[in-house]
């Protein structure tokens, strides 16, 4: 059931910028974003908290106006065509779309009515979504009594009531356990295949961006620092091989041998009894290296081989680890996501 078959860009931004002022300090949350996203793409905005992901999403979903620059979604400007944009998009925010005092099914029907469905159609659509998202047992319960995973599925259902051309998901799996996170990703993937909707999500889970998105846009300090498929982003980085030895002098010999075996782009480091090698094709060369070292009288005691991750991509681009950065910039996060304490800066 592919519903959306249009081609061409569905999201276009030109110099999209957003500033906040908090306590007389101007924070440039998003700085001159130029993007084109085509119909049917599944795109992840990846970056630490405070990078500008949510602010970008809030501009694209008409929640806040840009300070300068422009953006259009589904052919309509996010400032002058708010209502048309809202009709075309589904939005799953960081909180719960369904009111906690309401029944899940009532909220689905009410959302359908808000999008112009007749009462009967809204009921039918609610039932379809309840079944699709495995909510049959809980749809007629008060939302506040549902578990976190159930509520998140209900949120997704709320965003899908009108089969939106573009679905925005703001950190969809934050706060979910690994099992629920995997289920959610499976549902997003299936939805993308079945409807052909364009899906834009933000995440600070590398695994999520990696597993889900065809295109990863890495954002840091309000700027796009990389934009490509996950595979291509990682391709230049090489694998990481960690070798542990009984004695430090064994490790010294091994480091020399490893350096000789790989070309000059390889990166070899030794720390006590541990040698790390980062090089393209290191995974394939590792077995050979192990036998070679054994015959040289410096046997390897432990080996770990890791493919590059998006964390490595981020580290390579910024010199900082994504995980560390997420912790460090936590205060900046409140500036970005909680604009109630901040005032808008006029364009």
């Amino acid at each position, binding site marked *: 059931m592919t519903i959306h078959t249009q081609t061409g860009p569905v999201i276009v931004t030109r110099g999209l910028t957003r500033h906040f002022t908090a306590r007389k300090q101007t924070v440039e949350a998003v700085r001159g974003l130029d993007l084109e996203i085509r119909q049917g793409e599944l795109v992840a905005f990846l970056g630490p908290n405070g990078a500008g992901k949510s602010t970008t999403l809030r501009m694209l979903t*008409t929640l806040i106006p840009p300070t300068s620059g422009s953006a259009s979604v589904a052919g309509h400007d996010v400032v002058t065509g708010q209502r048309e944009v*809202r009709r075309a998009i589904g939005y799953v*925010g960081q909180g*719960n*779309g369904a*009111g906690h005092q309401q029944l899940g099914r009532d909220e689905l029907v009410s959302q359908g*009515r*808000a*999008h112009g469905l007749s009462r009967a159609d809204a009921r039918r659509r609610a039932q379809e979504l309840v079944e699709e998202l495995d909510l049959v047992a809980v749809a007629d319960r008060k939302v506040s009594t549902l578990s976190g995973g159930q509520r998140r599925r209900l949120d997704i259902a709320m965003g899908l009531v009108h089969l939106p051309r573009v679905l925005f998901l703001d950190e969809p799996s934050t706060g979910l356990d690994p099992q629920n996170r995997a289920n959610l990703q499976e549902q997003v993937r299936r939805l993308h295949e079945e409807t052909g909707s364009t899906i834009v999500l933000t995440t600070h889970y590398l695994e999520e961006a990696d597993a889900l998105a065809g295109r990863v846009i890495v954002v840091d300090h309000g700027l796009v620092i990389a934009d490509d498929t996950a595979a291509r982003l990682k391709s230049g980085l090489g694998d990481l091989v960690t070798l542990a030895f009984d004695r430090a002098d064994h490790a010294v010999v091994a480091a020399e041998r490893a350096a000789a075996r790989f070309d000059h782009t390889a990166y070899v480091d030794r720390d006590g009894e541990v040698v790390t090698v980062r090089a393209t094709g290191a995974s394939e060369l590792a077995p050979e290296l192990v036998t070679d070292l054994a015959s040289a009288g410096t046997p390897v005691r432990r080996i770990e081989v890791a493919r590059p991750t998006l964390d490595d991509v981020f580290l390579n681009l910024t010199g900082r680890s994504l995980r560390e950065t997420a912790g460090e910039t936590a205060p900046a996060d409140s500036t970005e996501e909680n604009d109630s304490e901040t005032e808008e800066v006029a364009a």
Partner: protein
Amino acid sequence: MSTIVTDTVNVMSRELKPVWREPASVLFAMVQPLVFLGLFAPLLPEVPHGSALQWFVPGIVAMTCLMGASFTGAALTDEMLTGSHERLLVSPLSRSSLLVGRALKEVVPMLMQTAIILVVVTPFSFDLHLDGVLVGVAILALFSVGIGSLSFALALVSAGQEWLFWTVQQTLIFPFLLLAGMLLPLEGAPGWLQFASDLNPLTYIVEAERALFAGTWPAGTVLAGLAAAAIVAALGVSVGVRAMQRSS
């Protein structure tokens, strides 16, 4: 135009669902007025003509209406915290319908609360004049739409600082009540107090309710009460719609 109406009906019926499902929730706003009724009424002096309860009950009805409508923003605060308000802002529902639909819904708990009070007091020395009560309730309906809108506006501007909502609500509500002569007559009051009372729209509403609940129809008093309620409604809705339009 028709979308505004459809949107407003949608918002209102969504807001009413929890009320129909748990009608006892309307009692929450009635706790204080019922305590006042129970503990104050026995202290009321005998009056020469008519009962003291007849004088006191319309004030309690207006107080309940004020309490209920001024609490209502708290529900929006919850929706802002949990995320459903944000979801509604991204939906095609117009901003004004998000406010007006909520404000109109306030009429329903007000009617339920008034009915409860009348059922409680009618067996005692209180005469029920149904025609007067109906007109009185219509005035209160306007008043609760206005106060409800102001309460929602307060919730919207208190975003991110939830303590602000209750602080402002609690600070304003008792002066507003007492200056309307709701519990004690303000007839021998000093000039400044009298002046403040004259500026309070609730004063005129309570006076109109007293006349109507007693089955009398002094045109000037009733029209003054109606005008005061209409002014509160117009002011409340315009402030509320503006606050909703700024919400993000």
